[in-house]
C-alpha cells in the first residue's frame, strides 16, 4: 500500500500530505504512507516501551510471595499482571509497523534494545513496592498521558488502555508507603530509605536534559511527543513533593526549594553519569534482568511447541 502511494505521488508530496495530517491532528494508521524515519522512531520507542513493561514486572515480582498479607498480595499480583498486558498491547502496536515480534524480543535479550533504566535497580525491602508504585508508576503516568494523543493511532489507543489501568498502580504504591510512614519508627525508616533510593532514578526516567536530547525536536514535530523531558520532569516534581511532605517523608535533595514566583520547585543537579552507566548496562541489576528474561524464553520454548502441536492435531481431527 506504501507502494501504491509512492507510484501516485512524489516523495515531496507524500511528506507534505503526511505532515499536513499531523498538523491537523489526523492520526496516522498502519497502512498509511509514513516517512521511514517516523516508522523507525516509533519502532524504537514503542518496543523500548514494551520491553520496559515486561522487564518492569521483575522488581515487583520479587515481592509477590513475600507480601505482608493476602490483600497486598492480591493487589500486587493484579498490578504485575497489568504490566504484562501493557507489554502485550505495545508489542502488538510495534507489529503494526511491520516489526517482527520475535526479533523485537530477541533484540532485548541480546542487549541491542534498551528499556527504562529504572528497572535495573534492586527492590530490597517491602517499602520498595510502595516507592515503585508511587514514584515509578507515577513518573510513567506523567509520560504516558500525553502519549494518548500521539499521532500514531495504534500507539495512542494502546496508551489509552494503559493509562486507564495505571491509575490504581500509583495509588496502591502510595497506600503502601503512607502506611509504613505512619507505622513504627523502623517502618518509617524503611519508607524513607525507599524514597531515598528511588527518588533520583525516578527523575532520570524522563530522560536526559532537553539540551542533550537531540531527537526530541523531530518527535515533537511529528506529535509523537507533546512535552519535552524537562517539562515532564518538572511536572512530576511539582506534584510529588507535596505527596511526600503529607506523609512526613523527606525528598532526598538538599537543594530542593519552592520558587514562589514561578510556582515550581527547583531541584539539585541530577547525576547523569550514573544514568548513562546504567543505560550502558552497568547498573546493579542489568545482567540479572536480561538473564531472567532470556531463561523465561528458553524455558518456555517447549510450551510454545506443545501448543502448536496440539493446535495442529486438533485441526487434523476436524479435517477428518
Amino acid at each position, binding site marked *: *500500500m506504501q507502494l*501504491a*502511494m509512492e507510484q*501516485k505521488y512524489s516523495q515531496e508530496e507524500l511528506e507534505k500530505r503526511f505532515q499536513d495530517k499531523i498538523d491537523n491532528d489526523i492520526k496516522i*494508521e498502519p*497502512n*498509511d*504512507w509514513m516517512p521511514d524515519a517516523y516508522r523507525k522512531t516509533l519502532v524504537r520507542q514503542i518496543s523500548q516501551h514494551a520491553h520496559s513493561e515486561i522487564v518492569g514486572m521483575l522488581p515487583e515480582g520479587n515481592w509477590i510471595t513475600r507480601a505482608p498479607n493476602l490483600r497486598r498480595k492480591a493487589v500486587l499480583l493484579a498490578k504485575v*499482571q*497489568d504490566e504484562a*498486558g501493557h507489554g*502485550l*498491547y505495545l508489542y*502488538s502496536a510495534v*507489529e503494526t509497523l511491520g516489526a*517482527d*515480534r*520475535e526479533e523485537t524480543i530477541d533484540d532485548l535479550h541480546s542487549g541491542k534494545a534498551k528499556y527504562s533504566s529504572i528497572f535495573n535497580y534492586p527492590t530490597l525491602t517491602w517499602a520498595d513496592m510502595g516507592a515503585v508504585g508511587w514514584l515509578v508508576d507515577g513518573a510513567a503516568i506523567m509520560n504516558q498521558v500525553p502519549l494518548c494523543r500521539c499521532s500514531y493511532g495504534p500507539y495512542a*489507543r*494502546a496508551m489509552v*488502555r494503559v493509562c486507564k*489501568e495505571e491509575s490504581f498502580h500509583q495509588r496502591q504504591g502510595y497506600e503502601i508507603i503512607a502506611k509504613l510512614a505512619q507505622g513504627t519508627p523502623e517502618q518509617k525508616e524503611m519508607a524513607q530509605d525507599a524514597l531515598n533510593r528511588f527518588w533520583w532514578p525516578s527523575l532520570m526516567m524522563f530522560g536526559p536534559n532537553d539540551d542533550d536530547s537531540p531527537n526530541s525536536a523531530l518527535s515533537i514535530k511529528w506529535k509523537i511527543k507533546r512535552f519535552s523531558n524537562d517539562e515532564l520532569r518538572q511536572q512530576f516534581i511539582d506534584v510529588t513533593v507535596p505527596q511526600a511532605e503529607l506523609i512526613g517523608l523527606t525528598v532526598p535533595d538538599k537543594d530542593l526549594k519552592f520558587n514562589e514566583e514561578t510556582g515550581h520547585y527547583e531541584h539539585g543537579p541530577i547525576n547523569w553519569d550514573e544514568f548513562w552507566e546504567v543505560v550502558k548496562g552497568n547498573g546493579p541489576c542489568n545482567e540479572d534482568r536480561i538473564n531472567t528474561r532470556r531463561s523465561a524464553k528458553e524455558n518456555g*520454548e517447549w510450551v*510454545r*511447541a506443545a*501448543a*502448536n502441536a*496440539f*493446535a495442529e492435531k*486438533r*485441526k487434523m481431527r476436524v479435517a477428518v
Partner: protein
Amino acid sequence: MSKNDWPLWEVFIRSKQGLNHKHVGSLRAADAEMAIENARDVYTRRSEGISIWVIESNNVYASDPSDMDSLFEPSQTKVYRHPTFYVVPDGISHM
C-alpha cells in the same frame, strides 16, 4: 517466523448486550481457542466485555488508503442523502 511462533489474531469485544463487537487489538495464539482465552486475560480484566470474537489477521482484507479518494469521495458529493438537504416549511413538525 520461526517454527514455534504463533499466528496473529484480531480481537473483537462486545462490551454489553445490545452493542456491536468492536475491534480492541490483537494478540498471538496457537489456535482460536487459545486466542479467546488470551483475549479474556488481556482485554477483559475489568469487565470490559461479555462476548469475544477472534479472527486470524491473515483473513482480514483491508481497503487501500491510496484508494481512499475514489472509494469514498462519491458519497461526499451526494448531499441529498442527508435530511438536512431538504427545506421543510415553517410550522411542520414530526418530520
